[in-house]
């Protein structure tokens, strides 16, 4: 085995794989944000809270209804997605014509309310949620021990990301959506119910956050601030990828996970900041982001 900067290739591959795993969470979350921003022009600051809601819904399903992980991964996004739809109908729909700032403030406020409420009832240490029996254990890859569950996270989130990209960029439904954001009046003239489409899009974006939450529940403790810790990084990912760019969010999510993983080996103290350094550099060179269309 060879060495690179004093680190064995074994350790390096292990760290790269872990970076990929973390990257899949970034990708899944930033995908939801990009969909919402791209289609609704809303900067959804409650995304972290909705991720947390997804994890808590999984916990509730197990605790009070006896429904395990596989039910949760299906039901939690639907439940949280419906709350998203309610939020869109009650609040967000009035804000589309206003400045971005109003949407940001509203969703930020909602995030604080959600997190505060859950902290009040469940404390800050979090609640345990175990890995589903079918995915327990792991396999030795030679260079590292890969828990089965983490492998599943990478594969599943990659599948979800690519499907979403395909639906929005390559299908008829996706083209309606994109057209509706460009010129809603014209699209309505073709007999398409644009407001309903927008509502469902927000619900879908929120459901993606909840799905990420369910996937995170067995890895991290289910705790009220789990989203707040992640959301800032995810926003940086979206900015680097280009606001609203679907492919940008996916590629940057995985890419930054890898870079962060490497930083944890070579300069662990900086692993929190490296993403923001990259963000600053990208904004200097390409203000619209790596994959963004410049306005």
């Amino acid at each position, binding site marked *: 085995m060879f060495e690179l900067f004093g680190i064995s290739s074994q350790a390096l591959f292990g760290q790269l794989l*872990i*970076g990929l795993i973390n990257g899949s969470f970034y990708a899944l979350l930033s995908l939801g944000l990009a969909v919402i921003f791209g289609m609704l022009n809303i900067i959804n600051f409650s995304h972290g809270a909705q991720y947390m809601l997804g994890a808590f819904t999984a916990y509730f399903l197990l605790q009070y209804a006896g429904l395990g992980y596989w039910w949760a991964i299906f039901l939690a996004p639907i439940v949280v997605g419906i709350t998203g739809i309610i939020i869109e109908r009650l609040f967000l729909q009035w804000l589309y014509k206003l400045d971005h700032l109003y949407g940001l403030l509203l969703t930020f406020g909602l995030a604080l309310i959600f997190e*505060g409420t859950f902290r009040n009832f469940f404390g*800050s*240490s979090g609640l*345990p949620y*175990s890995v589903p029996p079918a995915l327990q254990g792991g396999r030795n890859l030679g260079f590292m021990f890969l828990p089965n569950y983490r492998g599943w996270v990478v594969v599943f989130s990659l599948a979800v990301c690519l499907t979403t990209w395909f639906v929005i960029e390559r299908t008829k439904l996706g083209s309606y959506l994109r057209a509706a954001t460009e010129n809603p009046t014209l699209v309505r003239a073709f007999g398409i119910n644009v407001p309903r489409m927008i509502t469902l899009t927000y619900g879908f974006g929120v459901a993606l956050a909840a799905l990420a939450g369910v996937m995170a529940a067995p890895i991290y403790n289910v705790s009220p601030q789990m989203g707040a*810790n992640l959301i800032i990084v995810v926003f940086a990912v979206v900015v680097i990828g280009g606001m609203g760019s679907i492919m940008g969010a996916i590629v940057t999510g995985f890419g930054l996970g890898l870079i962060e993983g490497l930083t944890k*080996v070579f300069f*662990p103290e900086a692993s929190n900041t490296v993403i923001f350094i990259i963000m600053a550099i990208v904004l200097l060179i390409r203000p619209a982001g790596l994959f963004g269309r410049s306005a």
Partner: protein
Amino acid sequence: MKRLFTLTAVAVVFGCGCAQAQYTDGTIKIGVMNDMSGTYADLSGQGSVIAARMAVEDFGAAAKGMKVEIVGADHQNKPDVGSNVVRTWIDVDKVDVIVDVPTSSVALAVNEIVRDKNKVFLVSGAAASDLTGPKCTPNTIHWTYDTWALANGTGKAIVKTGGDTWFFLTADYAFGHALERDTAAVVEKNGGKVLGKVRHPFPGTDFSSFLLQAQASKAKIIGLANAGSDTINSIKQASEFGITSGGQNLAALLAFITDVHALGLQTAQGLIMTEAWYWDLNDANREFTKKFAPQDKGVHPTMVHAGVYSAVTHYLKAVEALKSDADGKAVVAKMKEMPTDDKLFGKGVVRADGRKIHPMYLFEVKKPSESKAPWDYYKLRATIPADEAFRPLAEGGCPLVKS
């Protein structure tokens, strides 16, 4: 971008009006500051405000004609936020004593302000042993535990049972550094070896990368020099990555009962930890817990909560004896002069460097089959007597101690 809310004030009764008004602005004002919304909120948080209130009630302040008021605030684990709260409290709100303050970086900042303003600082939540070492002040008492005591308890016990090679996973701020330093010293003194360390950002979420580095070091023991949800996630992910089943063991150098509760016994069983107080240790503690838990959503008190109770009790005794709370230095001097005695910590003393002395306990987390009731988590492995539990007075480097 986070919130800063000064929490509810809990006023406790008015004196008969006939007592001489010796106290500054007629009221003894206690400020409980800690993490009320983040990773340390369960182990300190609102519970510390509750503990302080119980101390005031049990002391019978009202019957003695002392008017005591308690205020609480969230420092969000940020030294700048904490410093601002304390300055406002002292300058504007006339707070006389600051209590609790977990997160050593915040505590060290508050330590300086309280000394400059000549008030009193009773530390329960923070761990860095520097508070009674080079950074000691005549206004500060470090009550419940510190990094030296933790290292001395857990570190020594583990090295003596064969865990002689260590790798540290350290939270990258004052507390983590102090805990790593004090534990490494104990390990080396007892014939062990430190093979390496990695410092993770605080607070962190994913520790798998650091854990793999610890695994590659082949050390027998992975020392977790972190706390709260950082420790919880480290332990959880270590079991996920098969580190414990691969023959390496974890040493949770600072863990609280709330962490064990969050992990569940299935994951936490077998962990060895050092604490100053446990709710199920004796009748007095159980009685306190019975009153405390319903007020804190069923959460059982941690040693930090118990320490707040004990510290506030002793403070009130000293103020009562002095009949004044105006001069912080004088109050602390009185607290050092009087022996401590309360129902949770029993008899003890406060040393010249500000270190409160009492026994420490080495616990092991029970197996799920051994636990009879909710929160029945620890079995006692050893009691570390008071005269061995804390750093010897001469070794701390505190300028207040005349050599």
